[in-house]
Structure formats: C-alpha cells, structure tokens
C-alpha cells in the first residue's frame, strides 16, 4: 500500500517529469551557456533466502524464509548549477518487522549556497538521511554493502531505519585540499520518521503497547575525512535525540522521557583489491519521569572489524567479526537476567561471518554468507516470541541473495 504524503507526491512529480535515460538522451541538447536540467533514475531489487538452524531470523527462516526483499527507485535531477533534487522510493520486506509497503526513503532539495572549485557550502531540506558511520546514508542499498547484511551491531536491520531517515534539514561544508584529500562536515537537524515500532520500543524499553515518538529533531554532527585518492576514510558522528513514551493501559510501566546520545567512529582503507574496515559506536540512553520506577541509564555498544578481498572484478570475498551488548555496564547481561528472570545472552551477541559475491555482469550479482552467532541480541521479538528465554546462545544462519540494479 502506498502511503500518500507530501514527499511521495513530490517524488511522483519528479519521476513523472524525468525521462528514464535523460542523462544520455539530453547530451546533444546541452547548452553552451548553462546545462539543461538533467536527471537520472536508478533502481535495484535484492531478494534473499534466509536459512537458520534454531531461531527465526528474517521471517520463518528455520524452514527457509524469503521475507528479506528490498526494492528501490532513486531519481536525481540537476535543476541548475546550484540546485539539485533527489528522491527515492523504497519497499522493504524484512521478516515480520516490515511488510513491503512503499515508503519515501528520501526526498530532498539540495542547494549550493557557496561554491568554489575546491570548497562549497550547501543545505539539504526535506526527508534527509542522517550520515551515521560508513554506510547509514546508503545502508539499504545492496550493491553498496560489503555483504548481504551489514554488521548488525551497528546497522541493525530491525531498527536502523527508524533514526536514519528523518524530516528536516542538513547543512554541510566540504573542502578538497591541494593533495586531493577531502573533508566534509555536516550538521543534521531532522525528526526520525518511524520510531514507534515494537523493535525500537524493545531497544529502548521493552515489549510495550504505548507510543514512542521523538519530541524534537535529532541534532547530529558528522565529520568525514577521505585521504589518499579515496583509499582511507575516517568518520565521526555525534548526535542527540529526545523521545517521549506514552504508556498504554496495558503497559506495566509509566510514561516518561528518553534521551539518546550516539557516538560513532569509523575507519576504512580501500586498497583496490583489499578493503579493511572497522567501526565502533556507543548509544547512551537516559530515562526521566518514569515514575515510580526509576530506569537506570545504559550504554549500548557495538564494534566490528572486517576484511574484504576482490580477486577479480567478478568476485568479492569478505570476513567479519561483530560484537554488541545492550549495556556496557552489564556486558554479559547477568544483572538484567537476574532481575527479570531472562537469559543473559539475550542482551549481547557476537557474529562471525564469511561471505562471497559473484557479479554475473555489471548489474546482476548473487551472494551467499554464513553467520555463526553466539548470543541472541540480533534476533527480533516478533520472530521469536520467547525472545528472552531462548534455550541456547549458539545459532547459525545462511543467507543467499540475488541482486539486480539499473
């Protein structure tokens, strides 16, 4: 079902005025004085089949699940030397968490306020993507992922979209020095579009029926620095967000406020055939007004290291180790388990991954990856109703994917 909202209507208007091959078709029409409006449309589809041996991961995967399919359509149009518009529609079918509805992923107006050959300042307005880490602003695009799944400690499919896509604006400044090193600093002020879902409520509070919403936009700063002809990338993201939880009559918790502070460090070295990446993030959550019960602040943490190798243009191989905990002060979840009678390993997870992708041609690829999990924090409550009482921390998953882009 398509949700009718202003962004969707704007996207449709953009696409309706965009010839699919405008970029190449208009080349003979471009003017000497200034470029004609030029637009490009790109899209993708990625269908995965997920198998797991003990618990459900992306649907009923213990019997083989096809409920992991992402489709998207992106249009970019250059209106003048200073103004571009960009929008994307996306359908995500992700286990029991997302049902394939078409949503506006981003829809923004990008205006260059100041521009010079080696530096510029600009603003984006509309539905923007918060650029967390290496992948957040393209985290849902299969061809831009090193594997089928991104590291679940930082880019968890069950709740990442909730904070990445937001309505508001982004101001950025970028500069390239004489050696070609590139620095981009951006400030995001955007209200996340959808935090009121069971996965996010479990992340911050628990499986409650009440409403969780942001009371004001997230404020986030990102510094990106790219060196050595794009070989080495450093990134830092710091943000603050304020939420409100309004309890439902069925909830065994009062209403209250939640503040979330995120600190995220990223590194990648891309030497062509070899790519090494590492990222780490802390999410500090504090709770107020949850009377009469006082909720202690906690710091969710995660990090991963990854090594990729491309022996030829057709093949990509990678391996990754990924770690996360729901609370740094209770890394093994033992305190939470003793207080709530839950399994300690439902509060943390490690994931050791090996994977490969074969490019059939420049647009189509098939991929497979094997995950060996220890800990169950990457699973969803919706897929596993006995989430806090699963019998063992050991489980495995095999994912196979076909992806096509145009």
């Amino acid at each position, binding site marked *: 079902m398509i949700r009718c909202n202003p962004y969707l209507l704007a996207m449709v208007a953009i696409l309706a005025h965009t010839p699919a091959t405008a970029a190449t078709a208009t080349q003979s029409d471009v003017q*000497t004085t200034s470029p004609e409006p030029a637009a490009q449309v790109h899209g993708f589809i990625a269908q995965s089949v997920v198998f797991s041996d003990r618990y459900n991961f992306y649907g009923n995967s213990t019997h083989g699940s096809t409920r992991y399919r992402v489709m998207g359509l992106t249009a970019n149009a250059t209106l003048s030397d200073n103004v571009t518009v960009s929008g994307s529609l996306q359908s995500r079918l992700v286990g029991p968490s997302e049902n394939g509805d078409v949503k506006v992923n981003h829809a923004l107006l990008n205006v260059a306020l100041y521009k010079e050959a080696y530096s510029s300042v600009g603003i984006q307005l509309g539905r923007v993507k918060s*650029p967390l880490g290496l992948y957040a602003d393209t985290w849902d695009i299969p061809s831009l992922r090193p594997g089928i799944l991104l590291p679940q400690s930082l880019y968890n499919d069950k709740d990442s979209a909730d904070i990445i896509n937001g309505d508001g604006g982004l101001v950025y400044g970028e500069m390239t020095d004489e050696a070609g090193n590139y620095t981009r600093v951006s400030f995001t002020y955007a209200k996340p579009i959808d935090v009121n879902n069971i996965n996010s409520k479990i992340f911050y509070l628990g499986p409650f029926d009440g409403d969780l919403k942001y009371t004001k936009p997230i404020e986030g700063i990102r510094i990106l620095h*790219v060196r050595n002809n794009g070989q080495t990338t450093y990134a830092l993201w710091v943000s603050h967000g304020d939420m409100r939880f309004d309890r439902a009559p069925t909830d065994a918790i009062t209403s209250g406020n939640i503040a979330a502070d995120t600190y995220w460090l990223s590194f990648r070295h891309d030497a062509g055939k070899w790519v090494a990446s590492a990222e780490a993030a802390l999410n500090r959550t504090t709770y107020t007004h949850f009377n009469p019960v006082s909720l202690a602040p906690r710091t969710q943490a995660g990090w991963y290291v990854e090594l990729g190798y491309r022996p030829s243009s057709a093949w990509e191989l990678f391996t990754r180790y990924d770690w996360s905990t729901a609370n740094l002060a209770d890394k093994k979840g033992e305190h939470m388990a003793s207080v709530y009678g839950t399994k300690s390993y439902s509060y943390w997870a490690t994931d050791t991954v090996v994977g490969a992708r074969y490019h059939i041609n420049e647009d189509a690829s098939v991929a497979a990856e094997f995950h060996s999990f220890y800990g169950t924090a990457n699973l969803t409550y919706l897929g596993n109703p006995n989430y806090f009482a699963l019998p063992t921390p050991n489980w495995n998953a095999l994912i196979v994917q076909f992806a096509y882009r145009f």
Partner: protein
Amino acid sequence: MPMALAADDQHPVILVNREATTSRAIDRTLVRSIYAGHVTHWANGTLVRPIILPTRHALYFSFCTTILGIYPYQLERRWDQLRYSGNITTDLITAQSEDEVIDTVKKDKGAVGYISAATAAHINDAELMIIEVQP
C-alpha cells in the same frame, strides 16, 4: 594542438571546454577529485559535468586505472553512494562514443571527459582543450 599526440596512441587524455579552465590549471589531483564527486564546480561557478564512456569501452578501464588510480568498480561504487544518499550535486554523463564526448564538451562549458590520444590528435578546435595527465 597543445602537444604532440601520436595518431596510434590509445592512452586516455582529458578533454575540457576551454571556458571552464580559464581560471584553473587541470592536474591529476583535480581530475581525481572531479571523478570522486568531491569537486562539483569550476572556479567560475559552472557545474562540473564529468563524462564517462560505457564500461565495455576499452578506454574506460585504462582511464580508471591509469588516470584515476582506481578500479572501475570503485568508481561505480563512489557514484552509487552519492546517488543513493541524495548527496549528489552533479552526476556522470555516459557518452556512447569518443565523438559524443567531444560533442558534449563542445556544447557544455562544464563538461569534462576523456578520449584517446589518437582521437585527440585529429582535434583542431579552439573551444576545446586537451590535457595530458601523467599517470
């Protein structure tokens, strides 16, 4: 002709509209920054419009590896990142042939592309500037 180009030389050279280059010399660093999507405007404020040949074209691979110093899939990934994030100010134009590169650069003062030195040897047009970029 700005330089001596051999009619049988297939290595890529850069082609720009002379109007875009009046205030800035073009070197390999600038070309790399343009094709990384980092430099999006010429010094006179004109939007930079980088041109590529189709991936199947022989010059595409040699341009990526000898001029840009990266593999073609790295170039494609960089531009996909810009397109899908919305952080795109200008986009690659795909020309189907070297003649189309020449035609586009002549008509669009912000365009920059590459052709073979052999093709460049036959160009004699005051509007166009041919630049040899050392690998």
